[in-house]
């Protein structure tokens, strides 16, 4: 009889541990995907000075666009929290978009190997930002499913876990014209 009770207690304890660990695993996944977005945004901003350098020699009459890009990069670098980083990162992307649109008018620039390389890198980074956001939202979804569905919901209240917010596409970003590289 006592053995049965001990066995039952062990099973119950295991269930509590499993659920606690599940919350932690999913939270770590969210943090990890968040830092992935951060890494890609940082990479993009790091490539900007190189891009400006390679463009400078060819594009003489379009100072305005280039200073826009530099300004957007500065704004991104001074962003403190994640939400504004994402926002400023999107603004930088749109500034880069107009720069690449102008580059279309300069055949010599388009033939420059360094420029082409940077263009490809930046296009790849844009994809990766999109994938990182997708994974972030996926991770949020599995976390929220756990906190909202039974029996997870009881453990969620026990461990003081509540549903998290999805990363929304900001209004500013939605208005970005689609530039094809």
């Amino acid at each position, binding site marked *: 009889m006592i053995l049965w009770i001990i066995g039952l207690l062990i099973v119950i304890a295991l269930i509590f541990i499993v659920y606690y660990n599940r919350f932690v695993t999913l939270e770590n*996944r969210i943090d*990890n*995907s968040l830092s*992935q977005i951060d890494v*890609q945004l940082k990479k993009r901003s790091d490539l900007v000075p190189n891009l400006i350098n390679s463009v400078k020699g060819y594009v003489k009459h379009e100072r305005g666009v280039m200073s826009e890009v530099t300004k957007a990069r500065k704004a991104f670098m001074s962003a403190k929290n994640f939400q504004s980083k994402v926002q400023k990162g999107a603004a930088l992307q749109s500034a880069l978009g107009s720069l690449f649109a102008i580059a279309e008018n300069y055949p010599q620039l388009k033939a420059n190997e360094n420029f082409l390389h940077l263009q*490809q890198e930046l296009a*790849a980074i844009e*994809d*990766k930002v999109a*994938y*990182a956001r*997708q*994974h972030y939202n*996926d*991770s949020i979804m*599995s976390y929220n*499913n*756990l906190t909202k*569905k039974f029996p997870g919901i009881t453990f969620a209240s026990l461990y003081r876990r509540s549903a998290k917010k999805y990363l929304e596409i900001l209004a500013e970003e939605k208005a970005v014209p689609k530039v094809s590289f």
Partner: protein
Amino acid sequence: MSQHLSFDDQIQRNKIKSFFLIGIIFIFFIILGYIISLILDPSYFFVIMIFAIIFSMIYVVAGYYNSDRIALASVKAKKASHTEHRALYHAAEGMAIASGLPMPKLYIMESDEINAFASGRSPDKAVICFTTGALKKLDKQELEGVVAHEMSHIANYDIRFMTLTAVLIGMVSIIAQMFLRSLWFGSGGHDRDGRTQIIMIVIGIAFAILAPIAAQLVALSISRKREYVADATGVKFTRYPKGLANALKKIKEEHVPSNERKHRVAKAMAPLFISDPFKKKVQGLFSTHPPVEERIRRLEAM
């Protein structure tokens, strides 16, 4: 949650199946050792048994820990270069982020045919190998689709299971070959009852012939099913079913003379590839992959 749960289930099932597969390998060796000892001399039963167990342990452990290297070496794959194969790295990095998996090591094998495979025993030890033909002929979306398909095999622990399957099939066929050949030379104990000996030899031959076929059939039916699952999981990463569908269409359309590809790839490795390197006109029980048309149809319906 239901979708996530089903993938988790898939992973769990693959881990359990892998475990059973290792068990089957051991049992197979014990049965084989028993039969061999009966045929040669029953008094050696324990000696043969011990050898069989030691041999099978070494075989499984070595095959398991070196599976990726064996697979890569058998197709003469080279490490992909960051400068030359940048498109592949971009696709793989994007998919690693989308799937949340560690970045796999990338390899290139020389072949005009469009194909790719994944190997390794766990996601952080995973490798993905692409043919040069695939890199040449697939565009960005298609490449991402195929990478996503391979990443799904990694995420679902298919690579571990398929690698073990390849190890098992390879082993069973080697043993069967050895046994059948030894019969030509083996004299057997002449002092024993001739009839039992003949019966034992017949059973042994039947076992040696049937075991590899049975092992292969089981492996193939599992392999076909997991291709559909990998296609679906891959789309979960790219959110773009057309990419993989178009890649499969290109694979379907290309015609490479069959004798050119045959000597490049060992038969046991076929289940690892995205499309069967030994594809024949007739689809059926012996195919490692479901028909490409059906896979395209399912992708386009997503």
